[in-house]
C-alpha cells in the first residue's frame, strides 16, 4: 500500500495523518513534515496512525527525532496505533515518550 502523509496546524496543535507503510524509503517524507512543523512551536504533535499498516525502525527513529525536536514541554500523541506498533514501542522504551489515545480530541 502506498504511503501518504498530510499535516495541518490548528491552534498550536499539529496534526499529521499517516497511511500505508512507513519504512526507510518513506520515512524521509515524514521527517520533512516534522521539520516543517517544528518551527511553528506546536504544543502538541498528534499523529493519526490508525491506517498505518507498517512501521519499520526508520519510522520509529522519526518518532524519536520528533520528540527530541519538540522538547520536553510539548506532547507527542499517537492516535490508534496498531498492536504490533504498541508492542514495539513498549519493548524499546519509546512508549514513555509518547501518549497513546484511541481518538483525538479525547
Amino acid at each position: 500500500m502506498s504511503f501518504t502523509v498530510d499535516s495541518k496546524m490548528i491552534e498550536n496543535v499539529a496534526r499529521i495523518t499517516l497511511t500505508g507503510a512507513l519504512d526507510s524509503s518513506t520515512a524521509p517524507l515524514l521527517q520533512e513534515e516534522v521539520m516543517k512543523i517544528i518551527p511553528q512551536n506546536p504544543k502538541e504533535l498528534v499523529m493519526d496512525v490508525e491506517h498505518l499498516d507498517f512501521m519499520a525502525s526508520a519510522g520509529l527513529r522519526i518518532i524519536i527525532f520528533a520528540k527530541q525536536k519538540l522538547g520536553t514541554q510539548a506532547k507527542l500523541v499517537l492516535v490508534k496505533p496498531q498492536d504490533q506498533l504498541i508492542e514495539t514501542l513498549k519493548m524499546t522504551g519509546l512508549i514513555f515518550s509518547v501518549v497513546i489515545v484511541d481518538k483525538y480530541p479525547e
Partner: protein
Amino acid sequence: MNESDVRIDYYPTHELDGIKYRCGRVLPFGATMVPNGINFSIYSSSATSCTLVLFKKNADQPFAEIPFPKEFMIGNVYSMIVFDLDYENLEYGYKMSGPYDPVAGHIFDSSKILSDPYAKAIGGRDTWLKPPNWDKLYPFRSRLVFEDFDWENDKPLETPIEDLIIYEMHVRSFTTHPSSGIKFKGTFAGIREKIPYLMDLGVNCIELMPIYEFDEYEHSKIDPNTGELLVNYWGYSTLNFFAPKSGYAATGKYGMQVDELKNLIKELHNNNIEVILDVVFNHTAEGDHRGPVISFKGIDNKTYYMLTPEGYYFNFSGTGNTLNCNHPIVRNMVLDCLRYWASEYHIDGFRFDLASILGRAQDGSPLNNPPLLESLAYDPILAKCKLIAEAWDAGGLYQVGTFPCYGRWAEWNGKYRDTVRKFLKGDENMVGEMSQRMQGSPDMYSARGATAGINFVTCHDGFTLYDLVSYNEKHNEANGENNQDGNNDNDSWNCGWEGETDNQDINRLRHKQIKNALSILFVSQGVPMILMGDEMGRTQYGNNNTYCHDTELNWLNWDLIKKNEDLYNFAKHIISFRRTHPVLRNSQHFRNMDYMNTGYPDISFHGKQAWQADWSESSRLLAFMLDGGHAKNGNYKDNTIFVAMNMFWEACSVELPKLQNGKSWFLSVNTDMQPPFDFYGVSYEQKLEDQNSLILGPRSVVILIEK
C-alpha cells in the same frame, strides 16, 4: 539535514560511479554518522590496501566498492567519509590485500569481505535459529546503530559491591519455557517482563551470560541418537565485541536490538537492579587455522591472535584461538569496547571469561604486570564499574587468590565453591578452610578485603544446585560427546540415589542440603552469586555442561516455583535476611578483636561449647558469632548474629554464647525443620525457649539473631 547546517569541511572531493566521498577522520574507529555522510575508519598493520564494500540491507551483492586512495591513509589507518548513504538500510564491510604467508602470520585474501571489528551491530543472525542463507557472500554484516536512546536521568547504579546479590542468567533460558507465561519469550524484552519476579526474589544484580553477537549455528550438529540440533547455545564465542545479540531481542528483526537492550537496562536500573555482562575477550568465533575468516583474521591476523612460531593459533581458551590481549592494538580495542558498553549501555560491571588469558604475554607466558588489566583498572570511564575475573584459563593458568588486581579486580572464588561443596557433603577436615571462606577468604585476599571474592556454590559451568545434591556423577550423554565433556570433579553427593526418586527421605534431605548451601552462601562475607533457577530447584538431570541445548535442559521451568515452593520461599528469606543485616556485608576483613568496645570481638568461633571451636580433622561443626556493634567497621549498628552449621550426619547440642543487657536469642533459620518452620521472616524471628543451648539436627544450619 538543513543545507545551512552542513559545515564546509564536509564536502566531497572524490566520486566513483555516482558515489561521493572524501578523506575521513581517523577517529573514532568504526562507522560513525557525520553531517550528510558516514565516516569509516579501520586499521591494519600489514595490509597493503583496503576497499570499502557497501551493501543494501540483506542484499547478496554489494552496490559499491570504493578502494581507499593512498592519500586517505594516515599511519596504518584507512578513513573515508561517504556522502548521501541511507544508513537505515546500509551494511558494510572491507576487503584487505596483503601478503599470504601463514608461517609469518599473514593470511590476507582480497576476495573476502570482512566484518568491521568496531561495528556496533551485526546483521545475519537477526532472529534466533532462523536458518540463514549458507551461501551468502558476506554472512556477518557490519551495520550502524543510532545513539538517540532517551536515558532520561539513568546512569549506572554504583551499588557498593559488598551489597550486591548477583543472579547469573542466560537470556534465552530465563523466559523461553512456555511456563514463563510471557509474550516475548527468550528475549531482552522477556527479562523486562520478569523484573517483578527479580524484585520478589530480592536480587539486585543480574549477570548476563554472553550477549555479544555470536553465531548460534557455530559447530552446530544433529545428535545422531536423538535427532536434536545441538547449537552454540551459551554463546561463549564472539563475532563482534560491540554488537548486542540480535536474536536475543524480540525487535531484532527490525534492527531495534540496541533500543530493546537499553530499555531493559534502564528499567532494571529503575528498580535498583544492576547489570553485569559476562564478556569473552579470550578468543573469537574464528576458530583455529581450519576456522572461518570473518573479521580479525583477514584484517590483521598477526595482531589479533597469539600465534605459535609456526603460525598456528595458540589455544589457551580451549576453543581454537586466543585473542592477543596484551598487544597494544588489541588492548586498546578491549578498552574501547568496555568504555562503549559502560557509557553507551550504562553497564554496571563486567565478568571476564577465562580472564587469566588477559594476563598472558603475546608468546603466551604469564605476565607479572599485565598492561591490559592495569589499563582497565585505572581507566577513568570504567572507574566505578565492577571488574570481575574468572581467574583461570584452559591453558592451566590458575590465579584464584593471585590475579593481578590493582586494588580493583574481584574474582570468581573457585576455592569458595570447592570448599562449600566438600563441607556440605560432610567431608573430613573442612572446618578450618570453611571458616576462611565464610569470612571472605582472608587467607587468599589479606590485602584486598572481603569483596575481592565472588562467592558461589554453582554457576552456569557445572551442576545446578539441585543436581549437586542429586547426582554423584555427570550425565552428559545428551551433549553428543560420549559423556567425555564437562568437569569430573564436582564434589557432589546424591543423598543416596542417583537422580530423580520418589523416596521422600531422600527428597527431604536434598531440599535441606539446598537450604544449607543457600544459608552458608548468604551468611558468608564477600559477594554472593546464585545461578538462575537454583532458588526453585532447577535441574539439568545431571548434565553439568549444557552449552549446546536449546531445550528444556536449559530453559527455566517456572512451574518449579510451585513444585518446590519451600525452596523458593527459603531463598527469598535468606536473601532478605542478608539484605537486612549489614554485619553480613563487610567490605573489610574481620580483625578478630573488639575494636568497638562492645564486649565481643567482631567475629568469634564456637563449637559444642561456646567460645570453643572444634578445628579437629573429624569435626564437621562450625559455629560463629558476628557482633552487631562491628557491622561495616562499626559504622552500622546491627543485631548480633549466631550461625551454627552441622554437616555431620548426626544431631548435636550446641551451647550458645551468653548475651548482654538482657537480650535474647531469636530463631531465624533452622534447615532441619520442615516448612513452614524452616525459617521465620525478618522481624518475625521466634524467641528460643532455651537460651543456653540448642539441638542442631543432622546436616543442618541454624541462624539466630540477638534482639
